[in-house]
């Protein structure tokens, strides 16, 4: 709370979290440890399964530890079959499902590369060819690899790993049974907390006398010569005694023992950092606290006796346990607890935050007032005038009704009534959208109809700063537009002049004209003709009108050119060039192509939009409705949280909760 930075409201439009957090600061902690890709085990490799070097960078990873005992080479293994499989269905409950991948193909997804080059141009990682390891993570949209196989690099030497990376068998010449004989393996990829809940199942294929098998999770630097659960940063459920082990030598009674042909499921809920197990599809209960908090977490198993063998299911086959249902339930619970949490007043204006301590919850009344305000300004922003008007009236009616019903209660009928009536202030929603909207709508409509003079004068009158901003750039644009409108007007007159000799039955052609400015000028010259809308103008007077209009346009253009000749800004030069090119066309309005873009209606729409946003900006208002910013802000925050290890965020599925259904 105390770290929150109060930002002046006027700057708020630019201060989205998107603008504040530099992309570089998003470093995924999964890359503090080397990320390894699965390898095909070849027969000519002497020691395909080396002990895990502790926190050594990838380049030195092959350095052989002196403690590694010599061992028999593995039997030849045929080239690995593809291990990728569809993302398990239960993971669709994560809002980040689109980033979860089981595919371990060496090429980076193209979107990732595009992302790097398009949004973080100053990042060094662009210079070097993208490695298989995503390297320093510059993006919050990089794919998240799911565990798909045990890691041959780090698994203990006494374990033999099957070709597809899913079966582990304990093979040791030694027959003594000591703890030091334990051998563990973990997966290549850590579990992305963005899963929300992650789950895998292990089947015991064969065992020794007792199944000294541990199934659970481990951090990246846990020794593989020990069973998961014994070492720090490891957690395990042991088959021989049914105990759970969390960084301890002595276990805690947890579940039944397990052995041959049993299928043990193992899950981690990142919303609570608690684990759970299932045996043959039966839920055994939550266990452990703070699992995987602050570290990368890998599925991990440990075996201890020759002949013990397990096979893992990372979701490429149907699970014994109905994990989808379980995740769905947890997802719903998490979402409920998020939206039932009290509103933190700090999301309101800084004035409010300053006056009220942040631990005071916001009342429903306040929430509703805020939303009413947001909705009203949303309606105003987009110019839904009638709706805005009706909505405002209804809000006031409701407030009056509430005030009325309260006044009918006898005074002092009880302390409850007194406390409940304090928050009502009829008309407390002060938002003068009428004035704001009518002026802005008038300006925008003027541009749209080609009446630039009105747009200019109204903007000058109500929002002079807009015209002056950026050394009068908007003024340049509007004046050039006016010039174009004059050229268009003359082109229309020429068309009519040509038409009048052919067609005799046009009525009121001039009276209906939309550009009153040019109209007035022509009218003052040919007043007599203009007055009679019933009589058709003769072709000679139409010609005079056209010539007059064209002359006026050219004069205006020349004056314009003179005013801005010294303005060397490329953008200004470009606007001038485009504007004057319009004169080269017989019918620019309908010319299509580039000319239409400069002269046609779309150009008016674009200018109108630009002017609308400039006005909003000059008022210190966001150029997008605050309500929309609220959504975007929430989405970015949730995405960021989800990508940086907050499991609950994975269950805040905005797409599903707000946009679908």
């Amino acid at each position: 709370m105390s770290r929150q930075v109060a930002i002046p409201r006027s700057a708020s439009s630019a201060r989205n979290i998107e603008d504040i957090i530099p992309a570089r600061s998003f470093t995924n902690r999964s890359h503090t440890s080397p990320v390894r890709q699965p390898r095909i085990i070849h027969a000519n490799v002497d020691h395909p399964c080396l002990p895990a070097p502790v926190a050594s960078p990838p380049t030195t990873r092959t350095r052989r530890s002196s403690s590694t005992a010599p061992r028999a080479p593995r039997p030849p293994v045929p080239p690995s079959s593809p291990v990728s499989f569809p993302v398990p269905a239960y993971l669709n409950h994560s809002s980040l499902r689109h980033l979860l991948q089981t595919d371990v193909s060496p090429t980076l997804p193209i979107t990732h590369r595009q992302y790097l080059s398009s949004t973080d141009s100053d990042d060094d990682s662009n210079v070097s060819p993208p490695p298989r390891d995503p390297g320093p993570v510059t993006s919050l949209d990089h794919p998240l690899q799911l565990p798909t196989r045990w890691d041959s690099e780090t698994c203990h030497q006494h374990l033999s790993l099957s070709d597809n990376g899913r079966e582990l068998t304990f093979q040791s010449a030694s027959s003594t049974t000591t703890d030091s004989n334990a051998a563990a393996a973990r997966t290549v990829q850590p579990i992305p907390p963005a899963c929300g809940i992650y789950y895998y199942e292990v089947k015991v294929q064969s065992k020794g006398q007792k199944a000294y098998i541990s199934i659970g999770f481990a951090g990246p630097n846990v020794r593989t010569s020990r069973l998961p659960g014994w070492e720090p940063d490891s957690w395990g459920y042991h088959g021989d005694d049914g105990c759970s082990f969390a960084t301890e030598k002595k276990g805690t009674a947890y579940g039944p023992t397990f052995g041959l042909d049993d299928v043990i499921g193992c899950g981690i809920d990142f919303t609570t950092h608690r684990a759970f197990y299932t045996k043959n599809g039966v839920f055994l209960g939550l266990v452990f606290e703070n699992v995987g908090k602050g570290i990368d977490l890998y599925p991990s198993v440990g075996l201890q006796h020759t002949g013990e063998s397990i096979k893992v299911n990372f979701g490429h086959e149907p699970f014994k346990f109905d994990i989808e249902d379980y995740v769905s339930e947890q997802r719903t619970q998490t979402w409920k607890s998020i939206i039932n949490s009290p509103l933190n007043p700090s999301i309101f204006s800084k004035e409010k935050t300053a006056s009220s301590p942040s631990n005071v919850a916001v009342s429903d009344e306040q929430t509703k007032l805020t939303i009413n305000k947001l909705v009203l300004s949303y309606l105003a922003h987009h110019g839904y005038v009638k709706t805005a008007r009706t909505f405002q009236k209804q809000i006031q009616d409701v407030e009056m009704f509430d005030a009325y019903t309260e006044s009918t209660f006898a005074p002092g009928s009880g302390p409850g009534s007194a406390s409940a009536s304090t928050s009502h202030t009829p008309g407390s929603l002060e938002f003068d959208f009428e004035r704001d909207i009518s002026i802005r709508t008038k300006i925008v409509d003027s541009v749209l109809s080609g009446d630039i003079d009105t747009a200019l004068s109204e903007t000058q009158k109500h929002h002079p700063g807009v015209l002056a901003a950026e050394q009068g750039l908007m003024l340049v644009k509007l004046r050039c537009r006016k010039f174009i409108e004059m050229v268009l007007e003359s082109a229309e007159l020429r068309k009519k002049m040509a038409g009048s000799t052919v067609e005799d039955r046009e009525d009121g052609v001039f009276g209906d004209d939309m550009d009153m400015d040019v109209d007035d000028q022509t009218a003052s010259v040919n007043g007599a003709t203009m007055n009679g809308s019933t009589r058709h103008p003769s072709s000679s007077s139409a010609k005079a009108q056209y010539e007059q209009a064209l002359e006026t346009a050219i004069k205006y253009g020349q004056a314009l050119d003179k005013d801005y000749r010294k303005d060397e800004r490329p953008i200004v030069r470009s606007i001038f060039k485009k504007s004057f090119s319009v004169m080269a066309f017989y019918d620019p309005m309908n010319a299509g192509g580039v000319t239409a873009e400069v002269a046609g209606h779309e150009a008016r729409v674009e200018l109108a939009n630009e002017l609308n946003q400039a006005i909003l900006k000059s008022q210190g208002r966001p150029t997008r409705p605050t309500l929309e910013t609220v959504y975007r802000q929430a989405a970015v925050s949730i995405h960021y949280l989800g990508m940086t290890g907050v499991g609950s965020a994975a269950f805040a599925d905005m797409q599903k909760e707000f946009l679908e259904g």
Partner: protein
Amino acid sequence: MHEVQLTKADMNRLVMDYLVIEGYKSAAEEFSQEAHVAPPVDFDSIESRMNIREALQRGDVEDAIVRVNELDPDLLDTNPELYFRLQQQKLIEYIRQGRIMEAIEFAQEELAARGEENPEFLGELEKTMSLLAFEANSSAPSEIAELLSPGQRMKTAGEVNAAILESLSQGKEVKLVSLLKLLSWGETMLSERADIPSKVIL
């Protein structure tokens, strides 16, 4: 930066959701036309819902019950708790109006049997009846005095509103409220984590 997928049509639907659930019927109608948003429900049902709410806020429980039955004849049959709430409110209104004999009669005939069925109902009934023990201006315990407050009427109205929305399979959570809650939750989580500057926007 992460590109948020959001269209104007999406935003319009969220606004429509708010107008409909909160019962701004006229605004919802205008909005449907101006913004070309398909109405998610029959607009008349909004009006019925609002009439029921207003009846309860006025203290006219009988009218509210009639209107609920008009809108959905099964609603009260299938929702005994809701029906009890309305009956309880009716009892409260009798007591408020000083119609003590009617209150007692009503409690004995309509509510006592229900109280026997359900201990929670019985507790509520006892609480309500104890209103009779206090003079209008005396200082009853706040828990009991609250029954006479406008807040109690609002609460009952809110419960009826939610039940109707549910029966229309229209969400009863207002999405914009959830959105604010989510924003607030996200900001709180962010502020707990790193030195990420938070933003003030409302």
